[in-house]
């Protein structure tokens, strides 16, 4: 039964929610970015390892945005299309329903990570960091993908409209990304430094920089893992709590 449900959710994300086009658009965007970086003058300012890091950040951002949009509309679209009632009338439990939607969206995110690998390999060729960058992208991207999809699906259970659900999910993404993007500024204050220690994206970026730019061994960067793992745990708890609240629109 669970296989049937996951397969249906995956197909729904792909066809109904335009997931297929989102995957294609991601590839087009990555292509454009890659071509721009290798051709513009300013691109040559950067070392290859830097370009690799920027590529990884772009892959993360695109993967998470697509996954968030699909996840945030997973339950809400069922309510809006009036198909939720039929689902709730089956013997399937709310938890199983939540899990199947979660995995369905996750598979799309994994597909995007997979299609990003050729770009990463192409950019990294010639350095000693191809394998490392692929492993880092899959590892860090995987943990963050698991977390963001959980948050997005949870919001889709709690909100009544897809607009609210999607916007809130994207807001969370921006809030979590922001410290990592403003690390130079935040480092100057105590509160900023605490925020940077806690933020999973900032820690992910630090890990990437340490391994690729500063060429430090990966195993020494495990100190950056706790914030990622804690973020994942919080996201799962949120999803489990929200899963119990699956209901029809209007039922209190």
């Amino acid at each position, binding site marked *: 039964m669970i296989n049937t449900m996951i397969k249906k959710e995956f197909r729904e994300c792909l*066809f109904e929610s335009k997931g*297929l*086009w989102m*995957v*294609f658009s991601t*590839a*087009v965007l*990555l*292509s*454009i970015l*890659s*071509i721009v*970086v*290798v*051709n513009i*003058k300013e691109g*040559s*300012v*950067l*070392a*290859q*390892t*830097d*370009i690799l890091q920027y590529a990884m950040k772009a892959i993360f951002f695109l993967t998470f945005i697509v996954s968030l949009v699909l996840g945030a509309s997973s339950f809400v679209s069922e309510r809006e299309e009036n198909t939720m009632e039929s689902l709730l009338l089956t013997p399937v439990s709310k938890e199983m329903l939540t899990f199947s939607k979660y995995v369905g969206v996750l598979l799309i995110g994994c597909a995007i990570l997979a*299609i990003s690998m*050729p*770009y990463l*390999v*192409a*950019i990294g*060729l*010639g*350095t000693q960091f191809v394998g490392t960058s692929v492993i880092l992208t899959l590892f860090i991207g995987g943990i963050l993908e698991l977390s963001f999809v959980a948050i997005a699906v949870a919001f889709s259970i709690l909100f009544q409209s897809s607009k609210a659900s999607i916007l809130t999910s994207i807001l969370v993404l921006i809030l979590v990304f922001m410290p990592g993007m403003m690390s*130079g500024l935040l*480092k100057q204050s105590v509160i900023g430094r605490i925020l940077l220690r806690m933020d999973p994206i900032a820690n992910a970026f630090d890990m990437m920089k340490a391994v690729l*730019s*500063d*060429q430090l061994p990966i195993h020494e960067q495990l100190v950056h893992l706790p914030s990622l793992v804690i973020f994942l745990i919080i996201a799962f708890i949120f999803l489990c709590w929200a899963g119990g609240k699956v209901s029809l629109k209007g039922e209190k």
Partner: protein
Amino acid sequence: MRKLLYIFSVMSICLLSTQVVIAADTTQKIDQTITTATTNQPKSDSEIQVEIISPKKIDSSPVYDGTIDIKVKNNTHQTISNMGCYLTIVDVGRNQTYPVDEFGENAYQTRTIEKLIPEEAVTIQIPVHILYVGQFRFTASVIAYDTNQIYTGAALPVTITAVSNLQKQVVIGTSVVMPILLLGIGVGIWKRRKEN
């Protein structure tokens, strides 16, 4: 008669002393004038001498990590207090400056020099972390906050050459092939559904 001679002597001594003082003052002013003229042409021999003593030049590839040692000397006869020492970076090839924080976490902060007594010199160390590729000039400057004077030393030539093996053809090839491949897969799936 004696009284007249006495008065004449005193007046002469006074006049002579005045001349000596005036002569000495004039000499000092000339010296100062020379000193000021030297400072306005931003090189050494100024009140504050700023010199990058180490390294003499940087010729490397990314990532370069090093420390720039800057000697700051008070060439005046007065104690100068409340100064700040800092780096500026110019990209020769691109005709632009860079924000110094892009060249190291601690490179952009000014180093405070509390005071320098006459002829005293201190060495300031600023660590740099160079990622970018290009031709740069690093200049060290000292600002005296009390007088708002800036003293700059000779620039340090920095050449960072890319050791980039970025394979442009492979990247462009991948960028072209991937979307086409995915489009083909997408169209194939759509056609199969339509046939069904």
